[in-house]
């Protein structure tokens, strides 16, 4: 997962600019699916890789997410 997290933060700015609000699915340090619906993104990722475990993150700036009071 560390590889995917690292890849996500390297690409976050660009991904958020292009796909804000969608879900990004990463596998082996690369984005393999970006979709509005999480289910659809995961299914696309499974078809592409054959795997069942993926790193997932909604495309909003991480700083904004953790600045919120839950």
């Amino acid at each position: 997962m560390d590889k995917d997290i690292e890849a996500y933060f390297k690409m976050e700015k660009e991904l958020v600019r292009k796909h804000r609000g969608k879900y990004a699915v990463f596998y082996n340090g690369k984005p393999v699916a970006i979709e509005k619906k999480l289910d659809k993104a995961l299914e696309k990722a499974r078809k592409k890789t054959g795997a069942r475990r993926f790193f997932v993150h909604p495309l909003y700036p991480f700083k904004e997410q953790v600045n919120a009071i839950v």
Partner: protein
Amino acid sequence: MKVWNYKDDAPVIPVVLLGKHRDIEELALVDSGAKHCVLHEDYKKSLDLDKIDESYTRGFGSKRKIPTDICILSLEIDGIIENMECIVIKGKYYPDDLPRVVLGRSLLNKFKIILDGRNKKLHLEYNGETGI
């Protein structure tokens, strides 16, 4: 004892949410002020979690109580698997830009956790015995 660095000044840790047919890895916000673990509805659906009950909760930017589902979630932190009840909040009540997984005391109380804010590190120990 496992140690993670804060990200953007926040205590978040990588977790794996174990589903029936797929698993989701995500960064979860550690929130000792939250009684329960909280999950966005999309994750419940994708993990195919069974609802065991319904309830109402406050928070998440709403002045009113909001309806929630309660599910049993299996969650893995650095190889340790724990099952616990979690609150699932529907997408329409969930502010878009909030973390999708929040770890509250229903999980955190099973660990010894130190928030070392000065050094921006989170230390976590399982049962005081098994280092994770």
